[in-house]
């Protein structure tokens, strides 16, 4: 498909290219680099929380800075760009067009990410990835907070430009012989998640601008001392970031729609239900933002509406899960590394979804609100579903990019360590939340249950860390020394893939 690395080229040729596979490669390398950086910060946090008292991080401000940059990095600089990476590679090929609709805009969207990442990492803000007022307006120290705001602003513009490109490529550049009803589900995933981005992200862009002018003292939108309302920021924030959950998860589900049929050696069970589920998620994603805010004093009616809106996502998620299981049913499944990650991903997707139903039930939300339950739920979703889908697809895509095979043994060891670690960390965090431990704290009293569970969580995090170190080694070593892949059938599944690698689009 895209053997960028097989014919060595000067790096500047790739960096200044506007070809969709080159831009995809840049997205992929950048996002994986940020994944390892953000993951390393998570390990620092877990060292600190291993037991009560100071372990590694001297003060709460530093701790807050680390977890702010950890969250911001992994959401905005890893998950979103990694989805764009594979979209750039595959969407033009899937819709049978020579490139993305706007190649230069595509390259511009990518090149906004490194400076935004630099702003976020050099500033190291401390107000969490939510940046809630009033702290973010009144007390958060600059210039770190302002650099974070500018960084996020740039990333927002990058996301919007990328989404416009995906939508136009799919809707306007699709081959006339290819109806939408026959378009691969991964392309559908990019279409729907891009539409969500276009509707949701501008709201946060406006909120960031208001936050910045509030910080400068020019306005008081969210500053109570100037007649503003901090809760208004939360509405604007969650109007973007609950749909953002679907922006993040839909491509990961799309990756699974590639992996399951391929390794089960049969077509997807129901293309139509996959399309319907993506469309449903796109719509109901906007009906649930305020379920993050039950504790802010909303009326009973408002809470009920958002609870029902949240539960409306359950049938769509169940349709995807059912589709995956029904595709495996009756297949002859080759359990190579990519499908192991995908199967692990749907098991954890279900668990995360079950926890989400509990959160969305408003009486129960008051038990779990701002506790470690929420940390466990959110991370189980982001890591257990999105990262599992993405990493599985990285393995799946590896031979197509490098022309070499990764180490299957190391890939499986990576999966086992990550699955065990994920269960240890995030299931335990749910229980820890029920035992009353609040989130976003850098130290805690020596309550025996809290101490025991924090030790388990930290050990789980270290297990994940070991798995990720193996992953990094596997990527680097196999890119250089891995066994040359059979490009017609790298996984030995038999049959031809529906878009052969020879379909590489010509360079500009």
């Amino acid at each position, binding site marked *: 498909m895209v053997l960028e690395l097989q014919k060595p080229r000067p790096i500047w040729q790739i960096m200044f290219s506007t070809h969709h596979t080159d831009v995809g490669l840049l997205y992929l390398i950048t996002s994986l680099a940020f994944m390892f950086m953000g993951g390393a910060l998570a390990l620092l946090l877990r060292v600190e929380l291993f037991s009560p008292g100071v372990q590694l991080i001297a003060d709460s401000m530093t701790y807050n800075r680390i977890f702010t940059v950890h969250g911001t990095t992994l959401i905005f600089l890893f998950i979103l760009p990694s989805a764009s990476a594979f979209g750039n590679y595959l969407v033009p090929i899937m819709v049978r067009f020579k490139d993305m609709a706007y190649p230069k805009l595509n390259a511009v969207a990518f090149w906004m990410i490194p400076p935004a990442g630099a702003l976020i990492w050099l500033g190291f803000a401390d107000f969490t990835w939510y940046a809630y007022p009033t702290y973010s307006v009144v007390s958060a120290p600059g210039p770190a907070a302002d650099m974070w705001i500018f960084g996020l602003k740039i990333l927002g513009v990058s996301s919007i430009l990328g989404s416009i490109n995906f939508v136009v490529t799919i809707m306007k550049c699709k081959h006339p012989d290819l109806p939408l009803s026959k378009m691969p589900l991964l392309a559908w995933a990019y279409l729907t998640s891009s539409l969500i981005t276009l509707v949701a992200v501008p709201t946060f862009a406006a909120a960031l601008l208001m936050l910045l002018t509030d910080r400068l003292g020019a306005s008081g939108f969210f500053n109570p001392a100037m007649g503003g309302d901090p809760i208004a920021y939360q509405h604007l924030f969650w109007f973007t970031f609950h749909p953002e959950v679907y922006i993040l998860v839909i491509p990961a589900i799309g990756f699974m729609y590639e992996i399951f*049929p391929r390794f*089960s*050696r*049969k*077509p997807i069970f129901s293309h139509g239900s996959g399309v319907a589920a993506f469309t449903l998620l796109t719509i109901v994603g906007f009906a649930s933002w305020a379920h993050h805010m039950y504790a802010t004093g909303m009326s*009973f009616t408002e809470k*009920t509406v958002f*609870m029902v809106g949240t*539960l409306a996502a*359950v*049938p769509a998620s*169940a349709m995807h*899960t*059912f589709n995956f*299981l*029904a595709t*495996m*049913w*009756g*297949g*002859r*499944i*080759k*359990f190579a590394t990519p499908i192991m990650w995908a*199967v692990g991903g*749907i*098991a954890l997707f*279900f*668990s995360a979804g*079950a926890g989400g*139903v*509990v959160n*969305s*039930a*408003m*009486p*129960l939300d*008051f*038990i779990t609100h701002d506790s470690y339950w929420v940390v466990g739920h959110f991370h189980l979703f982001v890591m257990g579903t999105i990262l599992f889908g993405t990493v599985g697809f990285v393995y799946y895509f590896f031979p197509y990019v490098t022309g070499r095979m990764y180490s299957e043994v190391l890939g499986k060891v990576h999966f086992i360590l990550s699955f065990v670690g994920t269960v240890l960390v995030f299931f335990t965090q749910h229980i820890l939340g029920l035992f009353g431990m609040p989130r976003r704290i850098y130290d805690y009293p020596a309550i025996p249950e809290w101490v025991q569970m924090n030790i388990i969580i930290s050990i789980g995090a270290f297990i994940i860390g070991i798995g990720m170190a193996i992953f990094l080694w596997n990527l680097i070593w196999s890119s250089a020394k891995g066994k040359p892949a059979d490009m017609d059938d790298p996984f030995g599944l*038999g*049959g*031809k893939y*529906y878009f052969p690698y020879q379909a590489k689009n010509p360079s500009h």
Partner: protein
Amino acid sequence: MKLIIGLGVILGLIAVLPAAEQVFAAGSEVGEYLDRKAAIWGLFYRLMIIAFTVGTVVSGLIVWLVLRFRESNPKAKPTSYEASGSW
């Protein structure tokens, strides 16, 4: 397959109904003393029972699918699509 779809619908309803019941019940309690903490934890445990039951069914199904349809299973046979070479 119809049996599985039916089972899925029933399990979905079982999961949603207790939450809906709680919502509508909460609106009709005028002047009635309610130990909210006990009621909320009671609802939590009920939902957990449902979640674990459904979770066990889904996880069990995943494990069974993995074991039954893996290519190394003695009962595994080529799918009808393998002969044509494309799927």
